Structure formats: structure tokens, C-alpha cells
């Protein structure tokens, strides 16, 4: 298979404008003749559904939650980047582009990233017009904060709830289109398969989660805006329902899956407190603007802290190792996420972790409170401090927070071309579900930017190019391909329903999978561990299909059944992640191969060998996936060893 990225010719800064002119348009009067399915209603899906409906397309939008407003984009805290340069500190579209490519450790597609930086400014305009209450300065103008991996203040925010406010903006635009009749909204509906007719994506099969009915929906194009797959790890900052099923089913139908091993481990999460833990909570990395990361200088001191003999506040200044500030004087505590995470792991591996399990480092606001006063710190981070206090029962105004990295975001996803189309014609992937913009590591406040860029400003143009070539004819849902897909879905469900004799619950299997992934395919990876993990996953998967215990029937509201279907797909995706991590024997961004590091323990890329997108083709159940490569060419940035010193 030849991967064609369809990146337009011409100078980088002109590609998008040129492309917008070159692509075909659908006549306004003809738009209503096309149906578009949007799966997922987060930032990408909500924005896409609303924007396409505004243009005149008939949109059917689907989400598994009880309302489109609950998609997990809502949990993003810190902010959204845009190259507005309102702060007059030297920001520009090119700088945002450059920072993003560099932050992604030179594993993203230049043209996509530049487009992202270009439309970033429109996003802010759009959201403000929708009534998103961004933080403002006293003069009434928008405020910015700085974020990891950047030396300018370009992050727009709405207290610690930026994702919520942006999502509610998209949700309001979507609601308006539902009211106008241009969007038909299906809630509590989970996509279980992609339907192909004549080699094109023409619809989906969903399960109505309330009554268990299997329903088919037909359209001229299908947009997957279904988020990432971080929940493969069981413990992650993703929502409990976040899953990879839609993307994985598209993958099985022919959509290549790109860079699955690129997962982002977020450095500032609340550490695991016990085996009962169901998910991890992220503390916005904006905290690193004012908080200082440290561990005790010696193992002995750390041991005393762990056993409770010594309080953090009693440790003398000289005995504190502010390792990020010492090691990376230029960026200090604001190094990119992967660097911060890895250094926390190294400190803990070194025996200097500070919670009972030895899996935590301090994030200290003592000095910031001394400098700025409690009120200012509270105004900036009040809700985060409150959240931390609630969860841990410790007051961060008085004692330093304890943090530890956790799985947060997946840069990998369905391979898409410049138009965001997967290798299945008519099937698009937007937002976190695709792989395109963040390379091997995503910078803070860029996920919201990408989701909204794809939904508001990219897909409304690029989808026209495809639809303009499509006939208006609709495919009826009693078409044999739909019936076949429905039957496949029903068979898949039937395999699990009534497995009341199983020995282990879905969660138990999921936790085991997560442990394998975290241990061998987490913050540091090596050949030996990955090889072992691959075998373990295969065994676990076989055991899962044989012994998983499922209660209840299929024609009813059944949360166990929902879960088992999702975990079944995680079991397959987990193996592909390991395959990809094994193949990529370099370190880059969030992917750290122990075999490939500098003398100082920093990630070392092998640009000659691995400057490509690894796109995997599904070859059948229990078959080895096939690797395809899309070479990455950098014409506008010079590849250097990333350094934040």
C-alpha cells in the first residue's frame, strides 16, 4: 500500500490557502443532498457536526454518553494555544509551528502542523464569539499564560476549566443545529462497526445503549472523532468510558493505525493510592508555572519522608533537589511533558520517591505563595488546589503537592492524509483519534487547539473535496453490506452475552492488561520487555475470550456488556502498541527506548532510520499487522537533538 499524504505543493505558509482554493466545492444547494455521520461529540466532533450543519449538510451525530456535552474534552484544564501574539512577546504562526514540531520531537508532518498554527488564531475568535468566558485582564482584553515547551505566553484559558468552556461552546453550536433540524443527535449510542459499500465508508452500526437494539445508519461520509486510546492502560486520566472501539473497528475495516506507541505520560497527576483506584486525576500542568518540582537530595531523607518521620516542610533548602531547574536551566519546571515525566520516574527509580509507594515527587508552592501571596495563587489555581485537597485530604497551600506521571493522551491514532481522511475512502478521523499533528509528543494546551482546528476549520473545507465527487444516491440500511455488518456485530455481542460461568470480571482483565502496558510499554521501554509483553497480551487475550464473566442480556441497558466490548478491542490494540514500540528502536518524545539514550539519559532519536510515520495495516485476527511507512520530510525546520537546557 502506498501512503499518499496529499500534502499540497508550494511554500509551507501557502500550502493551506492554496489547497483551499484547489479543492472541489459542493454547491450550497447541493449540500443538503449529502449526509454525514459524526461519531463522538467532543471538541472535534461537536465542532465538526455544528460546522457541517451550518454549511447545509445533513448531519447525524453520535455519542455514547447521555449528552453530547459530556465528552471527555470537557476535562481539559489548562488552556488552548493560539499564535495571537497579544502579549507582544515574539509569538507568531511560525513560532507556534516550530515549537509544536520541536515539541513533537520531529515526528509530525510539517504541513499539518503549520496549518494548525495558522487556524489557531481563528479558533480563539470563534470561541469568544460563541460566548466562551476566557480569562481577561482588567482592561477587558484576553489574558494569556505560559505553558510547558514554549517560551512565549500564548495560552488562552478559562480558569482551570478551559476544556469545559470550549466544549460547551461547541455543544452550544451543536445544540443550535439540532434545533434547526440540521443535526440529528443520537445519545447513548455506541458505534460498533464501520460499514463499507463498494470500498467506501457508507455508514455505521451502533448499539442503542438503553435498549440494546442494533441500528444501522447510512451516509456519504463518516467522521470518527472518538478520542484517544489511553484507557488501554486501565489507569489513565481518560474518562471511564473513553474507548478505542470506533477507531479500532475502522482499523479492522482497512484504516491504517499510525504510531500507536506514542503515548503521552502527563507529569502532574495525583499518584495512585491503592488497588481500588479506577482512574487517575490530572492536575493541570499550568501548575508548573508557579510550583517547583523537587525530591529530597538523598535516599535516606526520602525514606524518612515515606515512613512519615520527616515532613516535607521540615526539609532544609540544601537538602532539596529541584532537579528540573538544575538540569534544564532555560526551561526549568516548564520542560515538555515527556521530559518532566521521565525525570520524575528517574528520581523515583533512584529511591527518592516521596509517597508510601515511593512513586511520587513534590510540586511545591511555598515560594510562589511567599512571592505572590495566597490570594493570587488561589485566583490562578484555586479550583485545582481544592480538587487536590478533596482527593488527597492534604492542603496544598500548606504542604507540597505530591505528583506522579500518568497516561494522559495518545499522539498515535488513525492515519490520515492532509484532508484528514483515513485510508478508507470517506472515513475521516479528527482530533485525538487521528495521529497527525503532535508527532511523538504533544505540547500542553495543543490538544484543544487541534480538536477545534480539525472540527471548525479543516474538515468543513476538506470534506467538500470528497463529497463533490460522490453521487447523491443514498445507500439504504437494508443493503447487504449493512445487514452483514449488523450480523457481525450481533455475533460479537453474542459471544459475550450469557458468559455467566466466566471466572474473572472485565475489570480484572482490564487491570491486568493495563499493568502489562504500564510496566513494559509505559514511560521506558526495551526490546526484552516489549517482546515479553507481546506474548503476555496474546495469552491474556485468549484467556479473556475464554474466561471473562458477563452478566445480563444484550437487549437491555447493560454496562458490563458495554465494557467487555471495549476491553476486547483494547486487548487487540495493546498488542499493536507493543508491536510499534518494538519496531521503533529509537527514542523520541513520549516513546523512550532505553537502548537509545544520550549519555545524560535524554531521548536519542535516530533520524536516518526512523524519520517516518509507522502506519499499521490490519491483517486479520491474531495475525501480525503489516507496517507501512510514510516518510517525514522537514524542509522548514532543522532536525536537532531536542534540548531544553
Amino acid at each position, binding site marked *: 500500500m502506498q501512503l499518499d499524504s496529499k500534502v499540497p505543493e508550494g511554500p509551507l505558509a501557502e500550502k493551506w490557502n492554496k489547497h483551499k482554493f484547489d479543492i472541489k466545492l459542493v454547491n450550497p444547494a447541493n449540500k443538503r443532498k449529502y449526509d454525514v455521520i459524526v461519531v463522538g461529540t467532543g471538541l472535534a466532533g461537536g465542532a465538526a457536526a455544528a460546522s457541517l450543519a451550518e454549511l447545509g449538510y445533513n448531519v447525524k451525530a453520535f455519542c455514547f454518553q447521555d449528552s453530547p456535552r459530556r465528552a471527555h474534552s470537557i476535562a481539559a484544564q489548562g488552556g488552548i494555544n493560539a499564535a495571537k501574539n497579544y502579549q507582544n512577546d515574539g509569538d507568531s504562526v511560525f513560532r507556534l509551528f516550530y515549537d509544536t514540531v520541536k515539541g513533537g520531537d520531529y515526528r509530525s508532518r510539517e504541513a499539518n502542523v503549520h496549518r494548525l498554527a495558522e487556524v489557531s488564531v481563528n479558533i480563539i475568535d470563534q470561541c469568544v464569539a460563541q460566548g466562551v468566558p476566557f480569562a481577561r485582564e482588567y482592561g477587558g482584553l484576553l489574558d494569556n499564560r505560559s505553558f510547558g515547551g514554549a517560551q512565549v505566553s500564548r495560552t488562552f484559558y478559562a480558569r482551570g476549566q478551559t476544556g469545559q468552556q470550549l466544549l*460547551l461552546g461547541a455543544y452550544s453550536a451543536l445544540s443550535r443545529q439540532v434545533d434547526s433540524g440540521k443535526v440529528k443527535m443520537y445519545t447513548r449510542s455506541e458505534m460498533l462497526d464501520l460499514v463499507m459499500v463498494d470500498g467506501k465508508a457508507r455508514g455505521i452500526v451502533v448499539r442503542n445503549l438503553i435498549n440494546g437494539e442494533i441500528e444501522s445508519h447510512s451516509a456519504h461520509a463518516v467522521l470518527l472523532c472518538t478520542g484517544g486510546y489511553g484507557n488501554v492502560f486501565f489507569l489513565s486520566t481518560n474518562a471511564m468510558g473513553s474507548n478505542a472501539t470506533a477507531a479500532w473497528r475502522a482499523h479492522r475495516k482497512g484504516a491504517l493505525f499510525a504510531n500507536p506507541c506514542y503515548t503521552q505520560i502527563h507529569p502532574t497527576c495525583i499518584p495512585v493510592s491503592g488497588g481500588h483506584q479506577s482512574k487517575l486525576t490530572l492536575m493541570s500542568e499550568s501548575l508548573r508555572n508557579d510550583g517547583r518540582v523537587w525530591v529530597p537530595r538523598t535516599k535516606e531523607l526520602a525514606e524518612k519522608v515515606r515512613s512519615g518521620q520527616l515532613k516535607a516542610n521540615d526539609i532544609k533548602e540544601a537538602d532539596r533537589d529541584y532537579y528540573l531547574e538544575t538540569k534544564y536551566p532555560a526551561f526549568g519546571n516548564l520542560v515538555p511533558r515527556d521530559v518532566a515525566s521521565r525525570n520524575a520516574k528517574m528520581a523515583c527509580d533512584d529511591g527518592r520517591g516521596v509517597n508510601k509507594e515511593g512513586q511520587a515527587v513534590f510540586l511545591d508552592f511555598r515560594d510562589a505563595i511567599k512571592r505572590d501571596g495566597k490570594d493570587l495563587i488561589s485566583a490562578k489555581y484555586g479550583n485545582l488546589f481544592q480538587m487536590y485537597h478533596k482527593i488527597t485530604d492534604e492542603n496544598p497551600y500548606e504542604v507540597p503537592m505530591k505528583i506522579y506521571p500518568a497516561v494522559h493522551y495518545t499522539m498515535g491514532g488513525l492515519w490520515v492524509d492532509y484532508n484528514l481522511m483515513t485510508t478508507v475512502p470517506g472515513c475521516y478521523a479528527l482530533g485525538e483519534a487521528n495521529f497527525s499533528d503532535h508527532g511523538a509528543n504533544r505540547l500542553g494546551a495543543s490538544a484543544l487547539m487541534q480538536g477545534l482546528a480539525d472540527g471548525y476549520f479543516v474538515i468543513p473545507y476538506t470534506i467538500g473535496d470528497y463529497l463533490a465527487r460522490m453521487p447523491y444516491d443514498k445507500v439504504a440500511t437494508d443493503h447487504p453490506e449493512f445487514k452483514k455488518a449488523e450480523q457481525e456485530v450481533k455475533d460479537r455481542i453474542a459471544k459475550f452475552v450469557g458468559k455467566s460461568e466466566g471466572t474473572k470480571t472485565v475489570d480484572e482483565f482490564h487491570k491486568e492488561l493495563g499493568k502489562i502496558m504500564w510496566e513494559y510499554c509505559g514511560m521506558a521501554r526495551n526490546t526484552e520487555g516489549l517482546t515479553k509483553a507481546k506474548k503476555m497480551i496474546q495469552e491474556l487475550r485468549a484467556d479473556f475470550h475464554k474466561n471473562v464473566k458477563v452478566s445480563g442480556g444484550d437487549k437491555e441497558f447493560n454496562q458490563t456488556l458495554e465494557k467487555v466490548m471495549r476491553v476486547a478491542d483494547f486487548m487487540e490494540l495493546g498488542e499493536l502498541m507493543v508491536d510499534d514500540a518494538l519496531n521503533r528502536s529509537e527514542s523520541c518524545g513520549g516513546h523512550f527506548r532505553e537502548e537509545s539514550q544520550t549519555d545524560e539519559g535524554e531521548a536519542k532519536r535516530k533520524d536516518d532510520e526512523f524519520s517516518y510515520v509507522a502506519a499499521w495495516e490490519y491483517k486479520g485476527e491474531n495475525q501480525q499487522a503489516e507496517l507501512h511507512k510514510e516518510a517525514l520530510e522537514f524542509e522548514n525546520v532543522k532536525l536537532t537533538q531536542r534540548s531544553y537546557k
Partner: protein
Amino acid sequence: MNLTLQIWRQNKPDINNNGNYQNGEGKMTEYKVADISPDMSFLEMLDELNEDLLKKGDDPVAFDHDCREGICGMCSLYINGQPHGPESGTTACQLHMRSFKDGDTIYIEPWRAKAFPVVKDLVVNRSSFDRIMQAGGYVSVNTGVTVDANEIPVAKTIADEAFNMAACIGCGACVAACKNASAMLFVSAKVSQLSLLPQGKAERKKRVERMVAQMDEEGFGACTNTGACSAECPKDIPLSSIARMNREYFEAKITSNNV
């Protein structure tokens, strides 16, 4: 710690075959859970119960939850006689077991309102909230505006107040807490946010008229100013938002051209 749970179990939904509301059959059922750690979240305690039930071959308790960090608004449990349980400013998913004592009996029920019919056990259907938002909870602006974001300054105090209103997570605790199952706090939060900001001014009359009409259509009760909604709101939306909506509503009704 060991706890006794009294949980509402209901198999048949509150909506009958004709699509009308009808109380589905259900009852409070007792369960015991043991060895609960105070560091567990409330929902993790329910996870443990469900694992036990599943292993015993019983039907696990259905309950809504998703982000588990207090922002998606999915969790909706009436715990010990209060929405989201005893802690103020906290969703059920952020409630921790350290708020309870060994030997406690905990009552867990779904939100109860005609406009929130039960789907199963503790799961309710809150699509009435979506329909209210569809009636006007937006600024009519198509994608692709060309007005620069800084073109219209918004006083910080106004922006902050709008944010306080926009913080609503749409969980429905206000309805659950209100003795009249009134949705005024939810509706007024959105009405207030958009009437405060200059961007929302153009449509403010039509918006409040339509949203209130839809709210009434859904069968929510009227406000009697008990303040329970605001006291139980996990995001502390203030009662002043309802006053603002009342004001907006009358002004709109009396002065709009909509006869």
C-alpha cells in the same frame, strides 16, 4: 470499614411503551460492603460492590459516571438524602469514603423528577436539559467569524461572573435537590452567562423566552426560592442567577416583538 448500602434497584424504565411517564417498579435493596478504604472514592466503592455482585452472578448496580474528576456531570447519585452526598461543592465522583464512618448505612437513589425518568437503577435520562439548551442556550454565530477576539473588550468582573455561571456541569443536582424538581438554576446559569456577555446580547430576549418555555414544557416544577439548588450545586452557581433570569424573562416578555 464496613458499610450497609440501601440502593434503589429498578429494572423497567419510567417511560412506558407509549413514551409517557409512568413510575417503573423498583425498590430499595440492602447490600453489605466490607474493607472499604477511606481513600476510595464513592464510585470506587460502588465498583467494588459491583465486582462482588458480578462474581456472585447478580446483576451489578447501573449508575452513570464518566470523567470521575467532577467536570463531565455524568454522575447523578442521591446519597444519604442529598444530591452528590454530604460534601458541599463536590460531585459524587469526587466524594471520598473518608466522609463516612465504619458501620454507616448509606442510602443511594437516582435523581427523582418527572423530567428525569429512570432508565435503570440509578441511571436517569436527562435529555430534557439538552432540549432546553437547544431552545436557545447558544449564540447564533456560524463558524468562521472574522471579528478579532480582542475587538470587544469585556470587563474582567463581567467575564468572571459569566464564567461563574458557565461553570455549570449540567448534572441535574439542582433539580434533584429542589422540592419542586425545578430546573431554574440550570436554565438561569446559561441565561445569565449569555446575557452578561456582549456576544449574547443580540439574542437575549428570544433566548430567555424560549428556554423558559421549553423548561416548562419538560415538566420541571416552579421555583419557591428555598435555595436548595444552589446549596447542593457542585459548582456553586448562585441563586442570583435565578433572579437574573426572572428579570430577563419579564423584560423580554414585555418588550420583545414576539407576540
